[in-house]
């Protein structure tokens, strides 16, 4: 039984790694954005924290969101909409294996890109932190992939195969900007600052910032609760979508 899960994860990883639209853009975009805003601008925030250090946390969150939202939102929508998920369901595959493999692989991609971002920050951005902080931030960011996997699955369970990439971008990019992941939340307009606590992206960014002891709103526990709530609601929505799907019309 464990062999089935292992093979499912391994095959899913190969499939996604070879799919350049996923693997290259998931890794390249966060690194590129961090190079532009975190390294090239070399500013210091009013709170005394360097831009390279602050944005390492928020682009980490941005990277994790990309790895999961595309893998689930687009991946499930395409495989579901084009009948591949049906072929898997008709086979004796344990039903959970499909989702477990997708989750494991998007977490793996999240881990890869966060590791590369940290290396960039340490080498080119002069970011220095105790090892425990690096590790805690890494762990929090990668674990933060889980609620976003649920959000992606909710999108992928309803969106059509052609519209899914556009829908994911319409969710991913505004969430990132308005959640203070591209630019520090304190320099965003006041209206957006008030709206940010309603966005899951904001909470993951705040957790990573809190670990590196930047000034944040609320506690890590508050933000973790908010993320868990978002994740559970989206998992429920996804569950409804997956059930509805089984009764679709066919000749």
């Amino acid at each position, binding site marked *: 039984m464990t062999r089935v899960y292992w093979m499912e994860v391994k095959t899913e990883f*190969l499939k*996604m790694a070879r799919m350049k639209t996923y693997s290259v853009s998931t890794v390249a975009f966060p690194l590129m954005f961090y190079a532009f805003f975190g390294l090239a601008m070399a500013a210091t925030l009013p709170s005394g924290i360097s831009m390279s250090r602050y944005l390492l946390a928020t682009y980490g969150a941005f990277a994790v969101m990309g790895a999961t939202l595309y893998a689930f939102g687009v991946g499930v929508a395409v495989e579901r909409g084009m*009948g591949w998920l049906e072929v898997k369901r*008709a086979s004796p595959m344990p039903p959970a294996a499909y989702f477990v493999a997708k989750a494991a692989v998007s977490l793996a991609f999240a881990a890869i890109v966060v590791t590369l971002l940290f290396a960039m920050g340490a080498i080119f951005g002069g970011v220095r932190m105790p090892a425990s902080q690096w590790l805690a931030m890494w762990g929090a960011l990668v674990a933060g992939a889980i609620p976003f996997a649920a959000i992606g699955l909710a999108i992928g369970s309803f969106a059509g195969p052609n519209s899914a990439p556009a829908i994911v971008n319409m969710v991913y990019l505004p969430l990132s900007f308005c959640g203070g992941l591209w630019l520090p939340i304190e320099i965003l307009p006041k209206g957006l600052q008030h709206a940010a606590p309603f966005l899951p992206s904001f909470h993951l960014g705040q957790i990573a910032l809190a670990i590196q002891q930047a000034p944040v709103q609320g506690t890590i526990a508050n933000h973790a609760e908010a993320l868990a709530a978002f994740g559970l609601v989206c998992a429920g929505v996804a569950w409804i979508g997956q059930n509805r799907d089984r009764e679709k019309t*066919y000749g």
Partner: protein
Amino acid sequence: MPVAELRGVTKRYGAVEALRGVDLAIAPGELVSLLGPNGAGKTTAVRILLGLAAPTSGEAQVFGCHPACHQARVRRGALLQVGKVPDTLKVREHIELFSTYYEKPLPLAETISAAGLAGIENRLFGALSGGQKQRVLFALAICGNPPLLFLDEPTVGLDVESRRALWGRIRGFVARGGSVLLTTHHLEEADALAHRIAVINQGRIVAEGTPAAIKAQTQTSGLEDAFLAIMRENGSPLEEVIQ
């Protein structure tokens, strides 16, 4: 005891009745062809026997249990109509994964040769021709060495040569003792392969028997004429029948 069976099955999708009281049984070692025009209910019948859809009323059984039960799932293979299969996996990787789903799968080399994939097993799925892709789907259906196959319009879109080659592989499976439910709107295909044909139209089985009996029933020589005659009797518009 039949290996797969529908008893009085109806299936309603909103206002549309896809199946209206269908009885169908496949005996061990038998190849049954479900023949009918597009939209007749063929795919719905297969989906119910695969546990992908539940009947509105009536009963479906595979190997004596519910079609979605584990016992049924590990003893059947399926080739479904699928719009897109992941392109970035090699033929061998697709087969290896599906083989792990079964308790006693065929050795990889045997699946590859039975499906006619020798020489292309290391190619990415996306780089294959239409006929090769269909052979990979056939390989995924047989890799677990199941005693029962569901083939839903397996030769759609194939050229004559690929179609004949796939027929040969299906015959090979039956010769080794396997049972098959094959749906098709291709009359020649049902005639060439089936022990028994069930003609389905507008959700009802309108004729059933050996290819020869179906022909005799309507006193016409060709199966195609017989098919059209059966459809006309059942009030199906001719344009729909001819497609």
